[in-house]
């Protein structure tokens, strides 16, 4: 429970920082950190069976591929 409470406090601090303190340009990197915390601690992927980890990794790779394709499209217009 302590691990969860610390993660929750971190998530709230990051959310409040990107809402009220930090310039808007940092909002997406902060969102990525929050997403990582949720996946690793709340969804417990760090300690999950290899199959869910592979499924998550493949989804992440496909997402990266989609982002790269979008970037390539925008950059070459």
């Amino acid at each position: 429970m302590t691990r969860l409470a610390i993660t929750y406090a971190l998530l709230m601090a990051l959310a409040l920082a990107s809402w009220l303190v930090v310039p808007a340009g940092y909002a997406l990197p902060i969102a990525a950190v929050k997403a990582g915390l949720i996946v690793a601690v709340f969804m417990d992927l760090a300690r999950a069976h290899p199959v869910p980890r592979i499924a998550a990794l493949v989804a992440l790779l496909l997402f990266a591929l989609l982002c790269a394709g979008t970037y390539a499209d925008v950059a070459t217009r």
Partner: protein
Amino acid sequence: MISGRAHALRITVWLVVASEGLLFAGLFALYAGYRAEYPRGFAEGVGLAVGWLGGTNTLVLLTSSFAMAAAIQAGPRAARRWLVGVLGLGGVFLGLKGAEWAIHIGDGLVPGAHYAGPHTPGTALFVTLYYAMTGLHALHLVAGLAMVAWARRREDPAVTECVGIYWHFVDLVWVVLWPLFYLLS
């Protein structure tokens, strides 16, 4: 036998979450492509957002995720109480989202022919994406609430854990949606 069932449930929900993630990934790519094409229109669109509602909803959903994680770690009886908290916070999120949509609709920020917002190129597109993506997220949240209510009745730790993974995924999607529609002006 029970652990085998729990394992199968866990893998199933992870596969569902991974495929749902790709559905949202396509929409994020669409947003990125249009944002690159209409940077001013999208920045103006973000300026139309009701910032305090989006921020409050973020805090509400993060808190619901914590409650869900606590429900998974707690015993079956304590889990029921935590799950009531998740249901309540999910309801608050939907209520605030509905209030926000009502404000936008009242301001004429609606997709299609009745759009009456700023005419900077791309802003109407931003509004359409706003409704499509936050609406799809809200639908996932409604499905999540139904699952949480079901898990509360079942009092089965494996079911609670799997519903929790789905709930955290819904939170995760919002964590990315929030900067796109409320912060990146």
